[in-house]
């Protein structure tokens, strides 16, 4: 895997703005991610986190601003091109190719995201499934496996595309604490392989614990940025969450 | 100049006709996302109901309207409740293959039973027109134009101001949320389909008074309804008026000044262009899947 230049961030969002009619989903958001970082993206529901991810992946074209990935402006490119360049995303509502087997699901990523030939893609897919712990169900129809397994499957497919930057959109939602621990371990290993992660999560312990840095969105705007310790004490962040059931945790 | 005015008035009246039988289509799609390929059959059934009541029992077409409304309502309600509802959760292509199958059954059963003969309802007042400044305005078409306005206004009122209407809108916007708030989705959908069918049936009844009717007429009405609703915005009821008027006027002008055959081809080309360039319709308020 190529390492990008040390002085340039691998992914940058510059003044990103996206409106849906009268609704301002994202407004003037600036951020950058260094290669090998784990960046946490938090904020109350409706703060614009998923919209931001969709902008990064080319699902939405920003009304203002641009997305710069590996030094290239990618805002306006179709998602498949961005994926082939090395960025991939999991979805809030798990999307799998239900009629295909678990292996085939991952295959699609390798074939089209990484542009491998069928034999190589199959081999890599099997290795990746072992890595995420789905080796035992590789022949199962993906519509029939459990929800935690389906989330791993999405991660596996993302890894198969050869992504260097992985956007995780609430990949741990609905998991119990033990399952969350396992996923966190997996993500740390992925990072140790040199990948960059941007994580959206509502499970505060998880995202605070794993992130090197955090960005906080509220009503589409970035209201805070810093280390987990700084964010936990940040006045604006606490205010944003007042009225939500969450209390911010101190990282361990 | 007179030719232009006549053509324009013809187009406007035609547009009203289009709107009257397209509003139900828009409603059904807007609420449950079903593209009803047998929509035209409901026009046909309304038309034939009026025809037979008139021909066999000499009941004036306008008096058949309430019966048409009621019977088509029941028909729509039952078909939705027991057949279409089973696939409401499935991807949309399933529902339009299904409604297509129902179209075949209804249209060809009608063909079988009633034969392919063309028919018309000719009353004592059928050919009567108003003449204003040299422009001819047939009463029957004027009545349908009026009906179109009533239907669109009525549906709009129903949706915005009544309890049932709000339930329908809630179900349209967010099915799960509506269910959680106590809305009976099954009944609401069936009700919506029934209303859409009823309104369409009444339009069909009126149409029998000045258009030729025949059992296979349905499909072209379905296609036209789709054109009207795409132009006006899928699921946006007031838009059916605009869509209808635009199509009616464009077709009328083309038929007058160019060539009647071309108006068919150009309608399809126009539809094609609108779908590509502005799928949310002229006013941009339509639902785009």
């Amino acid at each position: 895997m190529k390492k990008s230049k040390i002085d340039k961030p691998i992914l940058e969002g510059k003044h990103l703005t996206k409106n849906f009619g009268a609704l301002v989903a994202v407004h003037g958001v600036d951020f950058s991610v260094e290669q090998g970082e784990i960046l946490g993206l938090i904020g109350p529901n409706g703060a614009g986190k998923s919209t931001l991810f969709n902008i990064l992946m080319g699902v939405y074209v920003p009304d203002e601003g641009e997305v710069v990935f590996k030094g290239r402006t990618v805002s306006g490119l179709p998602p498949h091109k961005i994926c082939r360049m090395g960025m991939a995303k999991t979805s809030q509502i798990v999307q799998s190719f239900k009629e295909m087997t678990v292996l085939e699901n991952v295959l699609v990523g390798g074939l089209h995201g990484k542009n491998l030939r069928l034999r190589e893609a199959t081999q890599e897919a099997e290795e990746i499934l072992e890595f995420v712990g789905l080796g035992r169900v590789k022949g199962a129809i993906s519509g029939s496996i459990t929800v935690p397994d389906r989330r791993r499957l999405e991660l596996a497919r993302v890894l198969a595309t050869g992504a260097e930057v992985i956007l995780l959109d609430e990949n741990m939602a609905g998991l119990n604490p033990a399952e969350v621990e396992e996923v966190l371990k997996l993500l740390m290993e992925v990072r140790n392989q040199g990948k960059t992660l941007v994580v959206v999560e509502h499970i505060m312990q998880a995202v605070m614990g794993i992130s090197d840095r955090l960005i906080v969105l509220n009503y589409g705007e970035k209201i805070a940025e810093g280390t987990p310790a700084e964010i936990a004490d940040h006045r604006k962040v606490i205010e944003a969450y007042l009225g939500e059931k969450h209390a911010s945790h101190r990282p361990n | 100049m007179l030719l232009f005015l006549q053509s324009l008035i013809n187009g406007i009246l035609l547009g009203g006709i289009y709107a009257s039988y397209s509003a139900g289509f828009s409603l059904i799609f807007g609420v449950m996302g079903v593209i009803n390929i047998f929509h035209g059959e409901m026009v046909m059934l309304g038309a034939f109901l009026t025809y037979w009541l008139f021909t066999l029992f000499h009941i004036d077409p306008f008096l058949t309207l309430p019966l048409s409304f009621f019977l088509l309502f029941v028909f729509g309600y039952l078909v939705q409740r027991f057949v279409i509802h089973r696939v409401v959760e499935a991807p949309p292509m399933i529902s339009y293959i299904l409604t297509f199958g129902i179209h075949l059954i209804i249209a060809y059963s009608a063909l079988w039973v009633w034969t392919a003969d063309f028919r018309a309802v000719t009353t004592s007042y059928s050919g009567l027109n108003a003449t204003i400044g040299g422009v001819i305005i047939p009463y029957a078409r004027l009545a349908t134009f009026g009906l179109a306005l009533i239907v669109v206004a009525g549906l709009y009122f129903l949706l915005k101001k009544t309890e049932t209407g709000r339930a329908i809108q809630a179900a349209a916007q967010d099915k799960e949320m509506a269910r959680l708030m106590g809305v009976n989705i099954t009944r609401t959908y069936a009700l919506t389909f029934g209303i859409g069918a009823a309104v369409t049936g009444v339009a069909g009844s009126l149409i029998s008074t000045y258009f030729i009717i025949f059992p296979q007429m349905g499909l072209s009405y379905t296609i036209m309804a789709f054109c009207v609703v795409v132009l006006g915005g899928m699921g946006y009821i007031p838009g059916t008026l605009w869509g209808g008027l635009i199509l009616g006027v464009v077709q009328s002008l083309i038929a007058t000044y160019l060539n009647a055959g071309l108006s068919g081809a150009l309608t399809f080309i126009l539809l094609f262009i609108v779908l590509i360039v502005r799928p949310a319709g002229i006013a941009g308020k339509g639902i785009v899947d």
Partner: protein
Amino acid sequence: MTLLPITICLLIVPLAGFSGYLVRLLAMIFLWVGKAGCWNILSGMTGYIDFGAVGYYGIGSYATALLMSKAHAPFLVSVLVSGLVSALIALPIGLPTLRLRGAYFGIATLAFAEAMKQIILEFDKTAGVRFFEGPHGITLPIGPGNEFFYYFGFGVMVVVIAMTYWIRRSKFGYALRAVREAEQAAELAGVDTLSAKVKAYMISAFFLGLIGGIETYWLTYITPHMVFDVLITIQMVVMSLLGGMGTVFGPAVGASFLTVLYELFHRDFPYTYTILVGFIIVVVVLLMPKGIVGTLRKR
């Protein structure tokens, strides 16, 4: 493999002295399998229900008719060119329409086919030429007997089935299936969904145009209403649906069944056939959405 004996039997039929009627019936079935198979390559595999497939069939028909009757081109060249013409037209039509979702795509394609019919109908008047005769029909030189079309039909059928088989197991096939299952997830996984859809659309159009050319030569006289008939598309849809959309042999099963049904009913009870088709559709959608082959495979 039961395929081999079946293939050998089918190849022998015309030579074995069976009735001309059987040869004709089987030839029709082969060509319907071909048509349904074409429809299946796009719509069965991607889930984009094309209601305008007959448009390419008609284009191919007229291309062959014109080439053979006006330019006196040989049959083989004509049908190949017809396929190419259809495929070329499919590109500018497919690019915009395949971006549309579900129902909108269905109606846009239907509008395309209807527009094509109208254009040919209005061609003479608008262009001021006398290209066609009578109701815009074209007569071709009389061709060879049914056996010729039997073998040609058989060949095309085999090619279409083989194509479907090959596509399903290829990288391209995975792209198409991913589009059908979860198009946005496919995009996000690196699948160029538009390109995959357009390719399938063009392949389907090519063979539909080719088959249109073959059948035109067989019919020797065509009019726009015959070759742009929406009922042809309907047959393709129902055959694939009944047999199993997206499967390799589904169209063959569906086409065989429906063609026989058609032959049984159509002459004496034309409406009954279509009503039956309607019921088949409803029953399949409600009870057996994967079609015959699809449902059997699950067991």
